């Protein structure tokens, strides 16, 4: 079982990211679970969402404390949300940042595999909005290989309808542009 924790700010779609990933995994015949850290939802406040993916049915109804993957959707929560907390020693950190992986490792004082992409820049260019949920899914799939690259396309189409094409483009661009520091 792979456990993933999403960090973002309310309104950026961290919860949507977790849901899309779970939906894609289930469509591929896997078992998955996605849920927010429940609370009063406030636009702009740091938020957390969770996703579990497994080949077996998942029998766990608790938060994720030791994630295999941490994904940070908003650069501004990087140093305030304790994003590195509990990340497994062989885990993966994925960040939306304009800096490189070495810089991120230095400021968070971590040694894990680190993937970086300037998702805000990509989202602003393609979606004209600083909403990085679909963009960062591209980085997630690239850095982890959890699912086939195409597995997200159907869930993206269903979720975004008329703006699905732009979101798929943002997703694919981030997939191409993600840099991985092993």
């Amino acid at each position, binding site marked *: 079982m792979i456990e993933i924790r999403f960090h973002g700010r309310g309104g950026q779609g961290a919860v949507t990211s*977790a*849901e899309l990933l*779970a*939906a894609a*995994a*289930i*469509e591929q015949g896997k*078992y*998955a*679970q*996605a*849920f*927010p850290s*429940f609370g*009063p939802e406030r636009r702009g406040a740091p938020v957390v969402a969770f996703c579990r993916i497994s080949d077996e049915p*998942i*029998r*766990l*109804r*608790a*938060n994720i*404390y030791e994630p295999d993957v941490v994904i940070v959707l908003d650069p501004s929560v990087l140093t305030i949300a304790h994003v590195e907390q509990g990340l497994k020693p062989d885990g993966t950190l994925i960040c939306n940042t304009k800096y490189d992986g070495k810089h991120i490792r230095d400021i968070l004082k971590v040694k894990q595999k680190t993937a970086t992409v300037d998702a805000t820049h990509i989202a602003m260019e393609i979606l004209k909005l600083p909403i990085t949920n679909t963009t960062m899914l591209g980085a997630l799939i690239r850095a982890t290989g959890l699912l086939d690259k195409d597995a997200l396309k159907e869930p993206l189409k269903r979720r975004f309808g008329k703006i699905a094409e732009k979101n798929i483009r943002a997703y694919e661009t981030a997939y191409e542009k993600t840099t991985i520091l092993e």
Partner: protein
Amino acid sequence: MPKRVGMEVSIGASEAVRLANVDAIAAYPITPQTHIVEHLSEFVANGELDAEFIPVESEHSAMSVCCGTSAAGARTFTCTSSQGLALMTEIVFIASAMQLPIVMILANRSLSGPLSIWNDHTDVMLVRDCGWIQAFGENGQEIFDLTLAAFKIAEDHRVVLPFMVNMDGFILSHVIEPIEILDQETVDKFLPPFKPVYRLDPDNPVTMGAFAMPDLYTETKKYQDERLKASLPVIEEIWKEYGDLTGRYYHPVETYKAEGAKTLFITMGSFGETASTAVDTMREEGEAVGLCKIRLWRPFPYEAFWNAMKGVENLIVIDRATSYGGPGGPVASEIRSALYTMENPPKVVDFIAGLAGRDVAPGDYKAMYKRAQERIASGDIAGYEIYGVRE
């Protein structure tokens, strides 16, 4: 076999209600409400469900409307949560006394105060004695299945009672997970149209909800109690029929790795899933521990419960609500009472945990197990302990 589809559990629940082809839905549409009625209102608006959707100004009115539509012969559904249930409680008792086979999903959440929106079982324990059939599901698939079966059980002429499906708020209601949705043809074979025994009909007038003088009230209550108890074999029969149809069988009491277990956890609702994962780990570490899940809370399934208790030395009951100043949490008090006539009953240690969304992870079950062994060894097993309190 139908495909597993990833969806929010609340959406899965609303699919069950759509497939049951309900005639009337009355609900208070804002907090504390779930996506269930939101989705149902969309089904009605876009023509996928031919039903009256009646948005009302309060839950008191929601249950009042449900009583009216059910009495008129309409298959009726509503759902609520926490404060909403508290507000409708007056009419909840009337629905069962009038034998109205309404189905309600209760997204279990805490009651204020302090003001809280999160999950626990305080709301359902408020209406423990309301005379409804009350069952618990532990995941999205179970909520879907129990909801569909609930209509058939409630409307069966041997039963004719309202049915409450309990689903942990947030922990289930807001989670995306795989659910198998049955097709309409299969559901139609399982669930016949609602045929009321009596209905409000201007051409054939009947009296419903009449006044009872002291010389009749006790007899009506005895009848109501016998009626609820007599629903147990019908519930088992219909769950069996549902299992034959889908491969998913449900029982009033279910056990996990109970064979050879000296100690059993007792849980209701979504606790059961995490507890089974914790039991796996503890079994690997050599502990003789298992799990017993109470699926049917009312009518309480005594025989099945006693059968599950044979040879068990210790029980660790995990309550998700408090009975302030009482002898135990609501579940543990019932369990102790049910064990009273048993020869060599197991010892009961009661923990109250997971109040208002407090996370209960596999490690917490292990900690409660350890703490229970200590308390049993020292003979200190009376009352209850609120687990995980920061002091």
